Structure formats: structure tokens, C-alpha cells
């Protein structure tokens, strides 16, 4: 499964939606994922790809990790996976 598909699967599970109902341009808010849901999604993504996501819930905008929509999250994870793979 590609990184994109896997992230969509994780986000869909968190939002309690079908995968097909998650669009790349959706924001997490569009999908009904609140701040706790976001933290849980980040945990699931870290577990899945064995990466560290630089994210602090106190300052979500301060980190390099862009969570403005599903596409930006996927792009961020693709970058982290390529950087953090030895």
C-alpha cells in the first residue's frame, strides 16, 4: 500500500468514514477530527511508518509538519519517510 493510501486509511478510521469519503483537499476539521483525534492520528502514522513526526499540540503551526489538509499531511509524511529511512 502506498504512503498516500495508508495515510488516508488512518485518517478515515479516525474520522469513522469510508476511505472513499476522504478527499485530499479535506481539512481535518472537514472530516470532524478534533485536536485529540489529530494527536491520535499522528500516533497511528508514527507507528505505521516508524517515523518521528515533529508535532507539538501546543503550537500546531510552529512545527515543520503541515497539517492544513490531507494532501499536506501525506506530503509531509513522504518527506519524513525518505529522510528518516537509513
Amino acid at each position, binding site marked *: 500500500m502506498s504512503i498516500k493510501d495508508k495515510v488516508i486509511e488512518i485518517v478515515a478510521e479516525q474520522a469513522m468514514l469510508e476511505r472513499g469519503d476522504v478527499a485530499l483537499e479535506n481539512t481535518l476539521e472537514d472530516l470532524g477530527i478534533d485536536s485529540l483525534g489529530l494527536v*491520535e492520528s499522528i500516533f497511528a502514522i*508514527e507507528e505505521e511508518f516508524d517515523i518521528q513526526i515533529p508535532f507539538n499540540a501546543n503550537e500546531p503551526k510552529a512545527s515543520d509538519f503541515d497539517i492544513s489538509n490531507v494532501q499536506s499531511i501525506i506530503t509531509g509524511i513522504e518527506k519524513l519517510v525518505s529522510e528518516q529511512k537509513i
Partner: protein
Amino acid sequence: MHRVVITGAGTVNALGHNVSETLTAMREGRCGIGALEFQDVDRLAIKIGGQVRGFEAEGRYNRQQMSLYDRFTQFTLAAAKEAIEQSGLIFSGDEAAKSGVILGTAAGGVSTWDQNYRLVYEEGKNRVHPFVVPKLMNNAAASHVSMEWNLKGPSFTVATACASSNHAMAQAFQMVRTGMAPVMITGGSESMLCFGGIKAWEGLRVMSKDACRPFSANRNGMVQGEGAGIFVFEEYEHARARGAEILCEVAGFGMSSDAADIVMPSKNGAARAMSGALADAGVDADDVGYINAHGTGTAANDKTECASVADVFGPHADKLMISSTKSMHGHLIGGTGAVELLACIMALREGVIAPTIGYEEPDPECALDVVPNEAREANVDVVLSNAFAFGGMNAVLALRKI
């Protein structure tokens, strides 16, 4: 001062998943203690406990809830549902703003600590689920009850080891009695039946490997249980005005601190808590027909408790009945007084005294009527429920028939 009554009761414990199953088991003198089942139990010296069986969290709670509910919270919510549904109360407006939740637990989310320590220490993981803290915190259960039933008044969790739920219920009683709250949800819960939980208790060497036999000369220690007991404490006129079914009256409480030893019980501390409860309830010692004992089945507790009952009640100590239902459901630690309150309610409402099962040999140091092995029919008007905790903190409730 207002009178306070109980208008709802709920429980999950080793004897049953609700009040009626639990009382039936107590009436039949059934034992809920058996072989423990969880990971690494083979590495324990103590392999028995009053474990709740057949309580499937999956299906009962959704995925999001499961990520936030430790087992002690799961038990609490199931018991609270039963109690609040029985009361018929739906909280809104001013009533919701004033009514709250006070629960007891000694250790909160022990199995959440255990699972996550296992992940980071044994499995070497460097990351834990984001909800570990809100799941394991001692007030998690009380918080979820408040959210589920819209209870916005005074709410918190009390931790006094084995007396936690009695202290919680005493506090809730006080709030209703003084008019601070029309209704309080109270009681307690515990779930430490996991490898780390039992391993810690093993260290003290007070646990029995085979059975809990309170007051019996051949007793050899306590046996742990798990579960929850939750009650609706309501102002008497409030309950009457809405035609609620009243289970009994909470008449008073007594609290004391031994200020002596961190684990050994004190006759004087226990006696002062019982006398305090009688005085607070305004009842004579001779009016008490039944005491639900702390009765842990340890050498120290049972003889000290019997001696303190003899001190408080004098000649009447030989006429009253005293039993320990821990012999059936095990010691629920911070939740124990709450589950044991059910035996008190049964005594007052149904005239059935729950037995002390596993009783095999009389002990001259426990020479009271401990209702050995079989339940007994008796008409009692006033009962006490004892809880004497490690740390020397004691809390006794007095209940009256209504």
C-alpha cells in the same frame, strides 16, 4: 440538615454484572474467586482473585471510548448506568449544575500503567498512545460519569487505599445533607488484576494463595477482587417529591486516622470511626443489627476489627451480626466499600444477611457472630459498613431502613 437516601444502585464485580446477580450470589453464599487469567500470570506466586468474567468491553464501548476507558472506568460506567437508570433521574438545568460525582479508587488505571510500561520497558518501544495519561488518571472514571450524565456540580476522586469508596460516599453524603447538592453520584471502583498490580501486592506477603476466609482461625490472607459499585445519593424530600423508590437512608458516617503505622491496623482508630458513625447518625449502639466488616481475611485485620467492635458495642457485640463479603467477591481495594454497601442494602430491604463464606474454624480472637457460610434471614433497622485502610485511614457509614 437534610436527610439523604439512596435511590439507585449499580455494580459490576466477580459475583455479577449488576445488583440483582450480585445479591443473588451473596444470598446463596457463592464464591466469585477463582484462577486469575491474564498475561504472565504464571510468573506470579498468587494466582487467584475475584476477577470479573464475561464483561466484554468490545461491543459495549466504541473504538474512541476504548482508547480512553481503562478497565476501572469501564466497570464504573456500567455500574453508573444501572444506578442512574434505576433512580430515573435525568440531569438538566439547575439540578445538573449542582449535582456531581465523587468516586473512590486506590490506584486508578493500573492496567494502563502496566500495559504501557510493558511496551516501553519490555518491548523497547519509544512511543505510547497519546491517551495514556487521560486513561490511567485516578479521576478518569468520575470524569466520564460526569460527561455521560451531564453532572456539573462538585466532582472529584478520593484515594485512601481500601477506604477510598467509603470516604467518597461519606463526602457525597455530606454534600447532600448540607444542601450543597440535591443529588450526588458516588461509590468507587478498582481494577488491579494484572501482572504488575498483583506483583506489587505479593511483595507485602499478605495475600492468600487459596482462599479468603475472614474470621476463620485458619485464615491466611486477603484475595483481590475488581469491579465497581455506584450509588445515587439523593435528598429525601427531592426523592419523595418525584415518587422515587428509596432503597435506604444514609444516616451518618465516622472517619478517623490511626496516626500510628502505615500498614498495621489500630483497634482504637477503628473504634473511633465506628463510634463516630453512630454519633453522627444519632443511633444507639444497641440499634445496630448488622455490620458489614472490613474483614480482609488477614491475621491482623480480623482480630483487630473484632476487638474494636467489642469495645464499641460492649455486650451488644454478642448480639449483632458481622460478616465479610470479601470472602465471595474478594477485596476490591478502593472500590470495596461500594460493593459491600450492597450487602448492607440487602440486609435493610430484604432482611437477608450476607454470609462470611470459607469459614472453617472458630478463632477465639474473632468470637462474634460472623454469619458463617450461609446467609441468614433477620430483621435489622440500622447497619454499619466498615473500611479500614492502609495508612490508618478509616471510614464507616451508617445506614438505616426507611
